[in-house]
C-alpha cells in the first residue's frame, strides 16, 4: 500500500486547510472523507431538484481572510457576499430591525429606546475592544501556561501584554466577557427587551447553555470577531452555498498536489511502538503515513478512531469529560416564492438578513428550559435566512431557499432515541413559529430537510451534532482547547495531531485550527512554515 507523508482524516474545511498547507510545504498528503462528498459541516447539497442547500453551516464571517487570500480561494471559485439587515419580530406585531446603515440603525433603535440607541455606541466600542484582544491570536498556537519552554514563555508574554494594554477597566471587561452570561452582559447596556433578545441570541447559538448561563457572553463575542472585507462583526453568504468554501479549499489543496479520497471511513488510527503509522479503513484497506491528523472532534478522535490501549488514561478521561453537548437543529426549506412577513415590506433591506421571533431574553431562556427537560424547544430561538435574495445560484429565479437554525434541540428525547413522531413535532414547532409571522409561508414550502442532532451526527460525524466540535466555554478555550496539555495540536501519540474546531480557536468555519495545526506539524518535521501570519488588526 502507498505510504503518504501525511494523512488527514475528514475533508471538512479544517482538514482541507491543514492538507493544503502541508502539501504546499511539499508533503505528499491524502485527505480522507467517509462520505461520498467532501465538506463535512461546510457543505452544499441538492436534495430537491433545482435548490441548493447549505445543509449545516450557512453563513460566513470567521473564515480567516489571510488564509482565503494565501490559498487563492477566490481564484478557486469562492466568493463571500455580505448581507445587510436582520429583524426580530415581536408578539405585538411590531419588529426590531437591524439596518446596515448606522444612522438608520440609530433611528430604529431609538424607536424602541432612545437611551439604548445611544448606549449601542458604547456597547459596540466595548465589544470591538474585546475582539481586538482576541483576533490577533486566532492564527497563533495558544501558549501552554505550565510550560517553561522559551517559545511558550514568549507567547505568554505577548498574551499578557495584550491584556495589560487594555487598561484596568478593559481588563475587567475582558474577564466579564469570558465568564458572564450574555443576558447579564446585555443588561448592563440596554433596557429594551427586543433589542436585548436580538443581540443576545448569538450568545447561545450552538451552545447547550441559556442566555443567563455564565460563559455565554463569550459565545456572542465569538460571533463578532470575524469580518467581511474588514467590517468586523459582519457576516456573508458563500456564493453557491457553504460547500463552495470546501470546494475552493479542495481545489487549492489539489493544486499543491494533494489527494482527496472519498468513501474512506476510518476505523482506526494505526499506532505502532507509540508512533502513528497510518489508518485502517472500515473496508479493510490500510493507508500509511508517519503523520496522521484528525479533523474529527476530540471524542470521536480519542474514543472512536483510536485504540484506548494506545492512549494515556488521562487523555481518555479528558475526552470522556469533554463538553460537546448537542443543542441545535436545522431546517432547510425550498420555497416556491418569497414569503411575506407581517408588518414588513417585501422589499425591505431588513429581509436580506437574519430573522428571529424571540422578542425577549426570558423567552430564549425558556426555550433552554425545554432542552434541559430533554425535549426540543416548543418556542425555539431560530436564526432564519433566505440567502437566495442575495445569491442567484441556489434556487431558480424567483424561487427561494430558507435556512433555519434552531436552538434548542436535544441529542435524545427524554433520554430516548429520536422517533419519526418526535422529528415531526420538532419540525412543526419551528414551522408554526415562522408561520405565526408569515401568513403565506406554509403554502410556499416545496421541500423541507429537517435535521436533529441525530441526523447531523450520523452524516457529519460531529458528536451529538455539536456545531463547534465542543462548547465554547472558557474551560475549553485557548490553552484548554480541547483540554489542558494538548492545546498545541499535538496528540498524545508521536506523529498524531488534531486540526478540527475542537482545537483553538474553535468552530464557526474559520479554517484557523487547520492552518495552526499545519504550522505545528511542519515545525516538528523541520519543514519551512507555509502558513501566513495574521493581519495586524489596526
Amino acid at each position, binding site marked *: 500500500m502507498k505510504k503518504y507523508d501525511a494523512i488527514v482524516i475528514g475533508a471538512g474545511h479544517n482538514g482541507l486547510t491543514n492538507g493544503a498547507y502541508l502539501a504546499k510545504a511539499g508533503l505528499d498528503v491524502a485527505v480522507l472523507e467517509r462520505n461520498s462528498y467532501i465538506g463535512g459541516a461546510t457543505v452544499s447539497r441538492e436534495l430537491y431538484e433545482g435548490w441548493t442547500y447549505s445543509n449545516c453551516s450557512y453563513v460566513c464571517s470567521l473564515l480567516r481572510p489571510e488564509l482565503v487570500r494565501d490559498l487563492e*480561494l477566490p481564484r478557486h471559485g469562492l*466568493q463571500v457576499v455580505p448581507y445587510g439587515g436582520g429583524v426580530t419580530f415581536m408578539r405585538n406585531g411590531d419588529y426590531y430591525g437591524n439596518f446596515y446603515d448606522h444612522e438608520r440603525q440609530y433611528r430604529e433603535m431609538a424607536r424602541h429606546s432612545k437611551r439604548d440607541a445611544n448606549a449601542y455606541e458604547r456597547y459596540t466600542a466595548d465589544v470591538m475592544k474585546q475582539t481586538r484582544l482576541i483576533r490577533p491570536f486566532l492564527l497563533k498556537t495558544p501558549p501552554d501556561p505550565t510550560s517553561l519552554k522559551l517559545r511558550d514563555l514568549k507567547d505568554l508574554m505577548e498574551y499578557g501584554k495584550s491584556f495589560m494594554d487594555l487598561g484596568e477597566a478593559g481588563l475587567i471587561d475582558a474577564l466579564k466577557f469570558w465568564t458572564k452570561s450574555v443576558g447579564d452582559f446585555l443588561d448592563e447596556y440596554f433596557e429594551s427587551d427586543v433589542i436585548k433578545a436580538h443581540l443576545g441570541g448569538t450568545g447561545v447559538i450552538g451552545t447547550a447553555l441559556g442566555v443567563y448561563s455564565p460563559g455565554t457572553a463569550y459565545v456572542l463575542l465569538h460571533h463578532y470577531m470575524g469580518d*467581511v*472585507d474588514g467590517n468586523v462583526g459582519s457576516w456573508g453568504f458563500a456564493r453557491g452555498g457553504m460547500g463552495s468554501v470546501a470546494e475552493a479549499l479542495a481545489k487549492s489543496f489539489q493544486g499543491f498536489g494533494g489527494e482527496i479520497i472519498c468513501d474512506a471511513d476510518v476505523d482506526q488510527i494505526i499506532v505502532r511502538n507509540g508512533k502513528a503509522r497510518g489508518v485502517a479503513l472500515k473496508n479493510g484497506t490500510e493507508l500509511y503515513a508517519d503523520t496522521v491528523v484528525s479533523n474529527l472532534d476530540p471524542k470521536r478522535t480519542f474514543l472512536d478512531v483510536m485504540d484506548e490501549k494506545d492512549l494515556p488514561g488521562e487523555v481518555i478521561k479528558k475526552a470522556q469529560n469533554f463538553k460537546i453537548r448537542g443543542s441545535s437543529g436545522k431546517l432547510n426549506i425550498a420555497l416556491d416564492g418569497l414569503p411575506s412577513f407581517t408588518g414588513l415590506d417585501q422589499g425591505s433591506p431588513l429581509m436580506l438578513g437574519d430573522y428571529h421571533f424571540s422578542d425577549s431574553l426570558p423567552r430564549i431562556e425558556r426555550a433552554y428550559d425545554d432542552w434541559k427537560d430533554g425535549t426540543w424547544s416548543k418556542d425555539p430561538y431560530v436564526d432564519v435566512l433566505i440567502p437566495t435574495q442575495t445569491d442567484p445560484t441556489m434556487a431558480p*429565479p424567483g424561487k427561494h431557499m430558507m435556512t433555519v437554525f434552531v436552538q434548542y434541540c436535544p441529542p435524545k428525547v427524554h433520554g430516548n432515541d429520536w422517533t419519526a413522531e418526535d422529528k415531526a413535532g420538532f419540525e412543526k414547532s419551528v414551522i408554526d413559529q415562522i408561520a405565526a409571522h408569515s401568513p403565506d409561508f406554509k403554502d410556499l414550502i416545496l421541500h423541507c430537510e429537517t435535521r436533529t442532532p441525530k441526523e447531523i451526527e450520523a452524516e457529519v460525524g460531529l458528536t451529538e451534532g455539536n456545531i463547534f466540535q465542543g462548547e465554547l466555554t472558557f474551560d475549553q478555550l485557548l490553552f484548554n482547547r480541547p483540554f489542558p496539555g494538548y492545546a498545541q495540536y499535538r496528540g498524545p501519540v508521536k506523529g498524531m495531531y488534531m486540526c478540527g474546531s475542537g482545537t483553538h480557536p474553535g468552530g464557526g468555519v474559520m479554517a484557523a485550527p487547520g492552518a495552526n495545526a499545519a504550522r505545528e506539524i511542519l515545525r516538528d518535521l523541520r519543514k519551512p512554515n507555509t502558513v501566513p501570519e495574521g493581519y495586524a488588526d489596526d
Partner: protein
Amino acid sequence: MAGADERMLLTTPFHSRVAAACETNCWGNWKGYTTPNSYIDVELEYFAIRSTTGVFDLSPMGKYRVTGPDAEAYLNRLITRDVSKIREKRVGYTVWCDDEGQVLDDGTIFHLGPNDYRICAYARAIDWLLWSAEGFDVCVEEETQNVAALAVQGPTSCAALMAMGLSGLDALKPFGIEYFDFEGEQLMVSRTGFTGDLGYELWIAPEKAEDLWDRLFAAGAPHIIKPFGMEALEMARIETGFIQAGVDFIPAEETIRQGRSRSPFELGLDWLVDLNKPVFNGRKALLDEKSRGSRYRFAILDVAGNKPANNSFILKNGKQVGVVTSAAWCPTAKTNVALAQLEMPHGAIGEELVAEIYYQRELHWTKVNAPCKVLESPVFDPPRRRQTPALPY
C-alpha cells in the same frame, strides 16, 4: 435632458427613479450632473455588480456623434487604434493623444452604421474633436443630452435583460452591439462596461428612460437587480485594473505643470497604439518615445496586508520610484490592489517593491511599509466576462 433648473446641477433622464432609489441621499457631481455616490450601501452595491446585477446611470457620460463620408478616415486620424478594424455593430476601447503623444482621454468608439460612429469620453471633448476634423468631410456633434444610458452589469445581467424581452441577447459577443425595439423606440444594447464583468450598456431616447428603468427593474427582480453608485463602480474598476481619467492620469489638455501628462505607453495601453497607421495625432512623438524609451510605467500591484495603499509612495531600496494613483481592498479577489505610476525602469512583472502606507485610527497615524509585487494581470478577470453565449448567472 430633463431637469432644466439651471441654478443647480443638471439631472439625468432617470433622475426620478434614481432619486427614489437613492436611500443614502448621498450625491456627487459628474460633469455637471447630480449623480448618486451610493444608493443603500456601497459594499452591497459592489456585490450586486459581482454576484447578481447592478445598474448604473451613465447618462452624463460625454457622447459625440461622428457621421459623414470621411468618418472612418477622421477617426483614424484622431485615435491611436486602427478604426477599420472596428467593424459595424462593434465597439472599441481606445485613447486619443495630442500632437506630443500625450493622452487626452480614453473612451469607446461605437461603430453604429456606415459612416456613423459614437465616441464616449470622460473629458469634455468637442473642441478637440472639431479641431481635428479640419479638412475632413464629417459632422461632429455632441449628443450627451440626446441619449440616456444605463450600464447593466453582473453575472445575472444577461438573464435580467432577456427577462425584459431582449431575446437572443445571450448570443451577443463582447464589444458587440445589438438593436431592439422598446415600446416603438430603438433600444441599442452593447456588451460593454467599466466593471470587468459580464455586462451591457443600454442606450435609448431620454423620453423612454423612465419606462426603461421601470421595466428593467421589474423584469430583473428575480435575478436580483440593484442600482449602484459611483463608489461601488470605483471598487469594481480598480479590482479589474481599469484606469480612470482624472484619477490615474490627467487629460493632457488639463495639465498645467510640465511633464504631468502621460503617453499611452506610460499607462500600459501599448496595445491600443497602432504605429503601422501612417498618420494619426501624436504618432511622431510616440515613435520617438518608442525608440527613446518612456519615462514611466503603469503597474498593478499586489500589496501585502489589508491596508489600502491610497496615495502611497512606492519605494525600491528605500528610494521613491513611484506613486499609487488608485488603491482598494478588492472584496471578490480578496486582494489588496494598487494601480501605480512607476519611474522606468521599474515596474517589470514580478518586481518586488514597497508601498509606504499611512493610515489613521482614532486620530493616531501609523505608517507601514508593505511589500508589494507587480502583477502580470488584473486580480479580477472571470471567464464569464467573455463567454458567449452568456451564462444565466
